[in-house]
C-alpha cells in the first residue's frame, strides 16, 4: 500500500489541489437556495461540476508520472501496472468519497434542505467514480498535463450544459433532450431530481447503475498501460 499512501500525500501537496479539495467543497455548502430551479441548493446542484474538476486534477497526477518518466521507472520496478493503477485510483476514490461526505453532512449540519441526505451521498459517490473513470480515459490520450486539463475544462462546460446540470432539461428542444441522455451529467441531474421528488427506489438504483456502467466502460478504456 506504499503507492496508496504516497498518492494520498501527493494529492494534497499542491496548493491548487488543496483549494480544489477542501475550500471549494466547503464553499459549496454555503451557497444559497434557488428560487424555482434548481430544487436543491445551488451548491449541491453544481457540486457535480466540482467533482468533474477534482476528477481531472487527481487523474493528471498519473499523467504527470508519465510525463516525468516515473511510469518508465515503475515498469522495471517489482510493481505491476495493476497495482500502480488500482492503488492510485483507490487513493483518489477515498479523497472523493471524503469530499462527498464533507459536503453532504456539512450541509445537514448547516441546515440546508437536502430531502434525503443518505441517498444524495450515494449519488455523489457514484458520480465521483464515473468522473474519475472519465478523467482516467481522457488523460490516456494525452502526453501533456496542461493541454489535457485545458481541453477537458472546455469539454466539461459543454457536457454540463448539454447534460442539463446548469439549465433545466425541460426547456431543451426535443433533439437536445434525447442527446442529453448520453452524457453522465444527465444522470446526475436525474438523480438530483429523484432526491427531491422521487418515490420509487428502483428508479434511483437504475440511475446509479448507469453511472456505474459508465465507470466500468471508462476504466476499461483508461486503464491501458502507456509508458510515454
Amino acid at each position, binding site marked *: 500500500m506504499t503507492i496508496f499512501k504516497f498518492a494520498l500525500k501527493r494529492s494534497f501537496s499542491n*496548493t*491548487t489541489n488543496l483549494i480544489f479539495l477542501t475550500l471549494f467543497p466547503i464553499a459549496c455548502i454555503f*451557497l*444559497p437556495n*434557488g*428560487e424555482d430551479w434548481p430544487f436543491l441548493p*445551488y451548491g449541491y446542484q*453544481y457540486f457535480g461540476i466540482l467533482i468533474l474538476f477534482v476528477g481531472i486534477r487527481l487523474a493528471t497526477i498519473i499523467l504527470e508520472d508519465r510525463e516525468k518518466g516515473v511510469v518508465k521507472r515503475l515498469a522495471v520496478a517489482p510493481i505491476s501496472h495493476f497495482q500502480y493503477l488500482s492503488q492510485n485510483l483507490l487513493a483518489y476514490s477515498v479523497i472523493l468519497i471524503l469530499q462527498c461526505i464533507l459536503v453532504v453532512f456539512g450541509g445537514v449540519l448547516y441546515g440546508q434542505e437536502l430531502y434525503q441526505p443518505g441517498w444524495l451521498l450515494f449519488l455523489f459517490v457514484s458520480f465521483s467514480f464515473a468522473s474519475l473513470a472519465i478523467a482516467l480515459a481522457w488523460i490516456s490520450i494525452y502526453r501533456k498535463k496542461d*493541454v489535457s486539463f*485545458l*481541453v477537458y*475544462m*472546455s469539454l466539461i*462546460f*459543454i457536457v454540463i*450544459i*448539454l447534460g442539463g446540470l*446548469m*439549465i433545466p432539461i425541460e*426547456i*431543451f*428542444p426535443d433533439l*437536445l433532450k434525447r442527446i442529453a441522455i448520453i452524457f453522465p451529467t444527465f444522470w446526475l441531474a436525474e438523480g438530483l431530481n429523484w432526491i427531491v421528488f422521487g418515490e420509487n427506489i428502483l428508479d434511483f438504483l437504475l440511475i446509479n447503475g448507469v453511472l456505474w456502467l459508465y465507470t466500468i466502460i471508462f476504466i476499461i478504456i483508461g486503464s491501458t498501460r502507456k509508458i510515454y
Partner: protein
Amino acid sequence: MRVLSTIKFTVLRMVRNYIVLLLLLVVPILLITFFSYILSGVTTETGVPLRDENAMQMVLVFQLFGGSIVMYMIYNDLFTENKMRIYSLPFNQTMYAFSIMLCGAVYSILLGVILMVYAQLVLGVVWGNWVWTIYIISLMAILSIIVCLIFTFSVKKYKIAERLSEVYGVGFVLLAGFFFPMPENAFFDFFGTYGNPLTLSIGAVHEMDQSNLGEAWFQANILLGAIIILFMVMLILGRRRMG
C-alpha cells in the same frame, strides 16, 4: 522601429497557439450554438430574444480570458525562456512588450468580432450597434490584458499568476450572478454592478440598445477609467520587475 519587424512573428505565434484558439473561439462558438438552440423562442422582459442576450454575454465573458496569451508571451519572452535573446537584441524592450500587448488586444478583439459575425450569419442573432459593441469588446480585452500583466508582475510564481487570471475571469462571472444569485450585502452589490467589468460592459451595450446614451457612456467610461488607473499600476509594477 525595429520592433515593427517582430510583429509578424508575434501574430504568427498567437495564431499558432491552438489551445488558445480552442478555448477562446471553438468553445464559445459551441456554447453560443447550444444556447441558441436551447433558448430559441424565449424572450426577456424587454422583448429582446434571450438568445441574442445570451450571445452578447458569451462574447463579453470570453473577453475576460483574453489576456492569458499576452501574459504567457510576456512571461516567456521577458522573464524566462527567451529573456537573454530578447535583451541582447538592439531594440527597446518596453516597446516590444507594448507591441505584444497591442497584438494580443487586436487578436482578442478579432476573436470577439468573429464570434459576433458567426452569431449573426449562422444563428441570426441581431446586434444592436456594431461599432459600440466592438468598442466595449476592445475595452474588455485591454482590461483583461492589463489585469493579467499586473498578476504576472506582482506574483513571483507564474503558475499562481495563471490561476489568479482564471480567478479573475471565473470570479467576475460568479459575482455577476450568472450561475446563482449572490447574497445581498454592500460588498456583493458593488461587485455585482459598478465594480464588475462584466456587468458594466453588458450594461453599456444594453443602454446603447435602448438609446440611453448618457448611461451607456457613463458605464463605458468607468471601464476606461479602470483601464487608465490599472495601466499606471501595471507600468509601475512592470518597471520594478523588469528593472
